[in-house]
């Protein structure tokens, strides 16, 4: 796609002059080629940084945020109830600040849970949905779309806050340890682990910088940057989907939605990111 700047003349009917500067910019503009000619005018890294800056305004994640907020407050499901009594770890109905403390241990389920598995728990207990059926539903379909929208809104309610996952409970500490082991687990026909890409500072795959996830990689990076809207495919990606696609690229088999390995990895990354500022929901290439 090429960038098209539309200069529009205003049809003004009385009531003062309106000077117009209209730049029509949609997510998904590809401004860069990778040929040598382009590289001579500005470096590829500079070009990509400029592209990312242009994308920051008008993040389509806003649309998912709005949908998620509406879903939280709408009576739905067999029990015809809202999610407004859902406990995301800070008490029933407390949404602000919940995102930056997940995953965490929940006494009612006796499990460490991440945001999405906890949302499904609430959809099940408060609204009467079938949690296992939602977990089996592919991303981008039916109730999974609603889980994504809800996760986007809950994350937005913690925008700017710093990650501070609780580790006081032994299960939380155990899941951190299990997550660490999963992070370094080499497997599949490519011998990849998470650490293969995210185990060293300053590396990149093709032109995509790879954060080091064995420690805090910084504000708005790694764990602190998801959920995010991906411009390249116009999709809203939650952490569950991000991990799912990581495993696909690692040539692993399919990780179950909300499975222990995904939650444990969230614990590992989330605890390591302690103090990092969340920018979720973010925008990505």
């Amino acid at each position, binding site marked *: *796609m*090429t960038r*098209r700047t*539309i200069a*529009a003349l*205003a*049809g*003004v*009917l*009385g*009531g*003062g*002059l*309106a*000077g*117009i*500067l*209209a*730049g*029509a*910019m*949609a*997510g*998904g*503009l590809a401004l860069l080629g990778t040929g040598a000619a382009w590289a001579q005018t500005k470096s590829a890294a500079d070009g990509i940084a400029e592209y990312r800056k242009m994308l920051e*305004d*008008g*993040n*389509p994640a*806003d*649309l998912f945020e*709005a*949908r998620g907020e509406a879903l939280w407050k709408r009576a739905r499901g067999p029990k015809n109830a809202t999610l407004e009594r859902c406990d995301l770890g800070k008490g029933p109905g407390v949404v602000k600040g919940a995102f930056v403390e997940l995953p965490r241990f929940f006494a009612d389920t006796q499990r460490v849970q991440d945001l999405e598995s906890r949302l499904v728990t609430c959809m099940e207990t408060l609204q009467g949905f079938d949690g296992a059926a939602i977990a089996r539903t592919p991303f981008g379909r039916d109730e999974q779309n609603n889980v994504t929208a809800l996760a986007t809104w809950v994350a937005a309610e913690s925008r700017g806050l710093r990650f501070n996952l609780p580790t006081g409970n032994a299960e939380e500490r155990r899941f951190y340890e299990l997550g660490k082991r999963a992070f370094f687990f080499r497997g599949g026909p490519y011998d990849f682990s998470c650490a293969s890409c995210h185990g060293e500072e300053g590396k990149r795959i093709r032109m995509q910088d790879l954060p080091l996830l064995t420690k805090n990689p910084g504000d708005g990076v790694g764990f602190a940057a998801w959920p995010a*809207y991906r*411009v390249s495919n*116009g999709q809203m990606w939650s952490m569950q989907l991000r991990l799912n696609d990581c495993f696909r690229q690692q040539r692993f088999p399919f990780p179950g939605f909300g499975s222990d390995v995904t939650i444990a990895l969230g614990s590992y990354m989330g605890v390591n990111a302690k103090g990092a500022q969340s920018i979720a929901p973010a925008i990505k290439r």
Partner: protein
Amino acid sequence: MADPMRIRAQMQGDKAVVRVLMSHEMETGQRRDAAGRLVPAWFIQDVTVSLNGKAVLTVEWGPAIAKNPFLQLNVKGAKVGDKITVLWKDNKNDTRTDEATVS
């Protein structure tokens, strides 16, 4: 009916900066689905932005505009409390109107 637009209109000096995020698939008509069939074209063709009921910007879009389009414009002569209305119409004659107040 499509999802609501997100419209922000904020005064900056003597002009209102209006930012609009529209929810739309914007299919070019050239993409193929998993089965190899062409996905039919479906995109916003006309957008009108009005200030207190009077059109200040009309836009004609084509398939080059990507999914969930973002439009930003400056409106001189607007003031706090004014009403900004955005209307779009797509190639299936679907239409959506949303409004916001300049703050």
